[in-house]
């Protein structure tokens, strides 16, 4: 049974190891607004920030072209850093890039690797905690979106989405709807219906 919980709400009478929780006097409490499944012991955040991890895909904007590095704006408190040595193509200030996270350092900087310049298309933001729902189980949702709208879609774990080609408006509407209704069940069917109507 799923229920919505708020920070400080008791999840379990025993100490359970979970993300976004704290243990106080042997009991487990939530620290975020989330959806808690007490059978599977899973707490899914409703809103939330991106916590970078190795291998995450990100979409960002080149903010500064330094001597040996590029600074990348990732729409988060973390700063992105690209080392020029590993950049294959010419990048300029204002360019949009897709990259993956190579390493994190202690100074809130995310070192990126394998950058790819994105030209044209549209960019918009979603809540980072809803990204897994947009991708779907085994990338099902995003596959459904790309096949029915014929769009190129890149969803960054930092919540920045890039789309190009095909029915862009429909793809955007669908992704924003997934974001809004992420905590409801039967969402895949509703999105399929929405996409088939066009």
């Amino acid at each position: 049974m799923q229920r919505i919980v708020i920070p400080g709400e008791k999840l379990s009478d025993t100490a359970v190891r979970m993300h976004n929780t704290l243990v106080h006097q042997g009991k487990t409490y939530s620290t975020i607004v989330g959806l808690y499944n007490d059978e599977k012991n899973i707490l899914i955040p409703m809103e939330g920030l991106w916590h970078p991890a190795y291998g995450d895909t990100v979409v960002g904007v080149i903010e500064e072209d330094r001597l040996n590095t590029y600074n990348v704006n990732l729409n988060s408190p973390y700063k992105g850093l690209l080392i020029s040595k590993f950049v294959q193509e010419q990048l300029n200030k204002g360019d949009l890039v897709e990259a993956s996270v190579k390493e994190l350092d202690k100074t809130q900087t995310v070192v990126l690797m394998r950058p790819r310049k994105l030209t044209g298309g549209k960019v918009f933001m979603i809540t980072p905690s809803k990204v897994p729902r947009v991708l779907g189980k085994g990338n099902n949702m995003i596959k459904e979106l790309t096949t029915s709208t014929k769009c190129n879609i890149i969803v960054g774990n930092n919540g920045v989405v890039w789309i190009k080609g095909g029915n862009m408006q429909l793809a955007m509407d669908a992704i924003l709807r997934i974001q809004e209704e992420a905590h409801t069940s039967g969402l895949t069917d509703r999105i399929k219906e929405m996409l088939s109507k066009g």
Partner: protein
Amino acid sequence: MAGGEKPELIINGKRLDGRGPADLRPIKIEPNVVKNAAGSAYVEWGNNKIIAAVHGPKEALPKHTSDPEKAVIKCRYMMAPFSSLEGHGRTGPNRRSIEISKVTKEVFENVVMLELFPGTEIDIYVEVLQGDGGTRAAGITAAAVAMALSGIPMRDVPYAVSAGKIGEMVVLDLNMIEDNYSDADMPVAVKPLTNEALLLQMDGSFTKEQFKEAMNLIIESGKEIHQAQEEAIKRPYKEIMDKYEK
């Protein structure tokens, strides 16, 4: 504080607005009212009307304010020029609003998990549109809802309420007139999980017994305030869930 003759504040055991000594004014909380903030809330508490918004975490600027160990909280409490009968807010930040900004900041430094976001800042804005006594308590209550809705991890959702003394009677949630002529006024912010005080200020004086009675009233009424906060935080998600399930 205010001059002139002291009016009769309690008539036949009832207060001026018809409340008993331990009654709260009606509270209404509206979540997500500001689109550009990470989280926001609008509170109507009696005649108080307050908007609270939370931004961030973002890079701490100017750089010397940042802390490499944890996030820093910056808070701005402001009264609108039209918010009250006195000169509150008419000439920008003053001694009073700087003080309230500071105590609000300290409440949230003790509940927000700052260690998760080193080197960043979290901004809290509390704007009083209409003030009628107890705005710092209402502001903290609103900011707590805004903070929860922004998705920043926190240990608890704090609430605040004031207690006071009229003559020898301990009363809860003073309004402007009671505040101006009462013998004591004590705003308290509480962490409901452990009932720890996060803010404790007092004008006037209490005896030891009256202080204990006041704290009991605050913790008892806090359940009602916390329930209003909980309902407001859950409402936007419940609405969508109810629409599609069953």
